[in-house]
Structures are given as C-alpha cells and as structure tokens.
C-alpha cells in the first residue's frame, strides 16, 4: 500500500511542476481561462460550504463576489500603494463580515426563506452598486488597477497566473482541512438532519452562520481575483443569472465535495469558452443540465465518481477475500 501512495505523490508533484511551468508554453488566452477557472473554483468551494455541507440554498452568491470585486477595486484605486497581499485579504474579510452579519438574522429561518433572502441580498447588492455611482461608477463600470506586490506589477495574464493559482491552491487546501475537522463533520451532520444534530449538541446557529461567513470570505477573495482577471467590472457581471450559474455549477459538479467544486468550475469555464458567442445557448444547456442532474444524479458528477469508486473497492475486497 505504501508504494501505491508514493506513486500518487510523485504524480501530483509532477503534475504540479508541469502546471506551474505551463504559462511559459501556453498562449495568453489559455492562461486567462486558467485564471478564470481558479476564480470559479474558489466560488464553487465557498458556495459548496453553504449549500453542499449545510444544505441551505444561497441564491445570492454573486452579491458576495461583487462585494469582493468592488472593494478590491476601490481599495486598490484609492490606496494604490497597498500590496495585493493586504488588499485581497481585507476585501475577503470585509465580505466575510457582511456574510456573517447577513447570516445572523437569516439562518434561523426555514430553508426556502433563506433561499429567498439570499436572492434578495444578491439583487440588492447589484442594485446598490448600480445606483451608488459616485463610488462605483455605476453602469459604466470600474477599471481595476493592477495588483502590486513589493514593486512587482502583475500586468499580464501570465504574471497574474502566478498570483492566482497559489492563492487558490492554498485556499483549497485550507478548505480540505476545514472539511476534515470536527467543524466539517458538524456541517455534514447539519445537512443530513438539523433536528438530529441539535439533539447531539451541535449548536446549529453558530455553525450555520460560520459556514456562511467562511463561504462569503472565500467568495470575496474570489471576487477580488476576479476583478484583477477581467480588469473591468460592472454591476451587470454580478446579476441573478450569475448566482444561478454558480448554483448550477456546484449541482452538476457535485454538492458537498471539494472534488465536485473543482469539476463544476471546470464545466462552467469550459462551457463559457466553448459557446463564447452564444450566451443564450450557454444558459439553455446549463439549465437543462441542472434539471437532468437534479432529477437523475442529484449528487452530481463527483457523486457518480464516488459511487464507482465504492463499487470498485467492494469488488476488490470481494476478490481479495476469495484469494
């Protein structure tokens, strides 16, 4: 068994090295897509923390993305000397706090009400960004200054790659940790039965609110990175449709698992690029996929993979026992 594990580690190390060397050979556009994918992966992980693990519907994730994006953009503009490693976490923290404050009144309600309240939140954020033009330039959109770190300016997609990917990987590892610990298991229990978890002493409100806040934090950071990637943000990039896209992303990828989050992000990015000129067709396909998955494969693609893995392992055990 030990040799088996070692092979996987070498594989991942090799893949990692290749991955980090790739911008040297890939075109600018491809790198841009990889950056976008990383952003979506973070959003996906964040949304999964709320929907996949605690079973609540958050239909306003685009709102958090917007808050992260705009606070990063505004902070970077007004205080251009701040290194990105200060701006980004601040934006994330800010978004996380808003998430926490939003969570307190909302999360004690029934599931459907939470869906509606988060939906309202997302739209209100969009509307505020539109109306508060003195701060946000409203409809015209906001030009995002380049990220800076110790004098180094990330002024190209390839340079941005080396900022975004490590952050994403780091935060993904952090998420894996969160999920494995007691906290993560509490989240799982809550999703399966709120009533049962209460009797086991899990303080419902505290965990749900912290899941919400952490999710907002992740999405806030993703928003900041998003702003850097697309360099020009406007309220229209953060509308209700985007929130629903995010939900579709984690449903198809698989709720409640980090693998599912990654798969969902791959699919969203891929679909967007494949059908770049036809947004309606994109949405149509996405919507149909969402329905089909929810009816036939509610655990998403990652759910399917885990099922196969389970069956494969059982078969292996049976053969072992026979031998």
């Amino acid at each position, binding site marked *: 068994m030990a040799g088996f594990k070692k092979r996987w580690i070498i594989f991942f190390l090799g893949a990692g090295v290749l991955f980090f060397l790739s911008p040297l050979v890939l075109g600018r556009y491809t790198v841009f897509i990889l950056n976008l994918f990383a952003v979506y992966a973070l959003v996906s992980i964040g949304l999964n923390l709320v929907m996949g693990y605690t*079973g609540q*519907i958050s*239909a306003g994730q685009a709102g958090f993305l917007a808050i992260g994006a705009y606070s990063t953009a505004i902070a970077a503009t007004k205080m251009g000397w701040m290194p990105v490693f200060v701006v980004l976490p601040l934006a994330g923290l800010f978004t996380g706090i808003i998430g926490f404050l939003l969570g307190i*009144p*909302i999360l004690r*309600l*029934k*599931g*459907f*009400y939470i*869906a*509606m*309240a988060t*939906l*309202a*939140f997302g*739209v*209100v954020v969009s*509307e505020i960004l539109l*109306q508060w033009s003195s701060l946000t330039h409203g409809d015209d959109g906001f030009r995002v200054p380049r990220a800076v770190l110790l004098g180094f300016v990330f002024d190209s997609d390839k340079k941005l790659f080396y900022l975004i990917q490590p952050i994403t990987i780091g935060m993904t590892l952090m998420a894996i940790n969160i999920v494995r610990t007691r906290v993560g298991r509490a989240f799982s229990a809550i999703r399966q039965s709120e*009533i049962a978890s209460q009797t086991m002493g899990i303080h419902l409100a505290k965990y749900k609110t912290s899941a919400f806040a952490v999710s907002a934090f992740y999405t806030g950071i993703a928003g900041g990175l998003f702003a850097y990637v697309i360099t020009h943000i406007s309220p229209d990039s953060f509308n*209700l*449709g985007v929130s*629903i896209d995010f*939900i*579709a992303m984690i*449903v198809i990828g698989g709720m409640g698992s980090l693998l599912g989050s990654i798969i969902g992000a791959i699919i969203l990015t891929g679909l967007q690029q494949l059908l770049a000129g036809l947004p*309606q*067709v*994109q*949405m*149509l396909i*996405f*919507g*149909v*996929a*969402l*329905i089909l998955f*929810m*009816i*036939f494969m*509610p655990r998403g693609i990652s759910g399917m993979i885990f099922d196969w893995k389970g069956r494969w392992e059982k078969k292996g055990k049976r053969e072992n026992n026979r031998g």
Partner: protein
Amino acid sequence: MIIQVIVSGIATGCIYALMALGLTLIYKSTEHVNFAQGDMSMISGFIAFTFFQLLRLPLRLSLCLALLSSVAIGLLMYRLLIRPAIKAPHFNIFIITLGASIVIQSFSGLVWSYDQFPFPSVFPNRNMTIGMIRLNAISVGIIGVTGLLMLMLFLFFKCTKIGTAMRAVSQSQRAALLMGINVKRSFALTWAISGLISGIAALLIAPVIFLSTRMGLVVINGFAGAILGGWGSIPGAVLGGIGLGILENVAPYYFPSQIRNIIPFAVLVGVLVIKPTGIMGEERRKRV
C-alpha cells in the same frame, strides 16, 4: 390624486397576487416551491404574441389559445420535472424549478430575441371617470378580471367535489389516498390551474409593461407578496400581493424614485427578519 395611485397600485398588486396565488397553490398541495412561475407566465405571453402578431390570428382566439397553452405548460412542467423527482427532498425540487426558469428564459430569448414588444390589451387604453376619480380602464380591467378569477377559484375549491378533494390532498396525502382520491392527478390539476393563473397574469400585464423575456422576474414580486401576506396562506397571498403593489406605487411619492426597484426585496428581507410568518401566516410545527 392619491386614490389614482392607490388604484393603479392595486392593479399592479393584482398581478403580484396572481403570481403569489399560483405559487401558494402549488406549495399548499405539495410543499414545493416553483421558481419558474414567472417564466411560465412570460412564455404564455409570447405564445399569445406568436398567434396574434406572427400568425395573424384574431386577438380573442390568440388569447384563448395562449391560455390553453398555459394550462398545457403547467401540466408539462409537472409531468416532466416534478413527477420524476416526486420523492426527492424539497431542496432538489426548488433547484429543478430554478433550472426550468433558466431553460424557459434562454429558450424564449433564442426564439423571440431579448427585445421588448408591445402587446395589445383586451381593455381599451382609456381613462374613465367614476365619481370624482379618474381611472385607467386597463387598471380597472385587471382588478376586475383578477376579482372574477378569485371568485371562480373560491367556488371551485369550496363547492365542487374535485376542488374539495384537492383541498383534502393538501391537508393529508395519505388520508386522501385512502379515500380513493388519485393524488397524482390532483397534483397535475394543481399545476394546470397554476399554469392557467400565470397565463392570465401575463395577458393582463403585458400590455402595460411590454412583453419581454425578462418578464419572468415578476415571480420575485410574487414571492415577496406571498411572504408578506404569510407564506402558505391563500388569502395571505392575495392580500400580500395587493399590499406590495400599493407599496410600490405609493413609495416613490415619498422617497427617491429609485426605491421602487428595491421595494420587493426590502419587503422580503424586512418581513423575514421581523415576522417571518407574515401577516396571516401560521407556524407549522414539524413532526419528527
């Protein structure tokens, strides 16, 4: 002057009430939330438009065909989307209807484009004077039709065997089964009626706000109205919808006009934070 504002608020409110009613009917019978209610409405409007504008059929005929289509759409949604997943948790069904909403919207966008289209009204666009008040005939028409529809639905549910059976199903599916009631057919009928209501709503409002594929967003006003009135209560849905309409129309007179867009959301969040059960709502305790 204020009365005029209130009356047109009531008219808008009637549309919200119809949306809320469609949502509540489905929720009461199956505890499902239909996010696609507004889009069902929107596509019925476009179907009428297709018959009338593109196929040149007479207006009345087009409207009747559109209403028939709206019933069919309701049934189709039930058969294709809900029945296969009938045993799934409500979370899943909500997401399925979310998906349906996206599909209907993008499909309509592809077929009819995202432009806005003028839509003819059954009622003349004229102002009338009743006593000291000047009212628009369209508003009066909307209120009248909604009132009539509500009355018919009330009579249907109260006095007919099928209507009573549908009420029975919403109170206890198991007991209804034991009475020999075909519960699946009752669900289908609920969706059919809901579809019809949303179709009527489209035909009433399209002349006022112009037909567009974004019309489906009115479902959010429907949700806000239903939550305001008390989610799960039929009189609450009607009251809340009308109340929301009045609020939306009156507020711009006292607050900056941009507030109009945020009102349904402010109401939503406000009600949920202050009194989640709304005006007429009752707390339902969960049995374990």
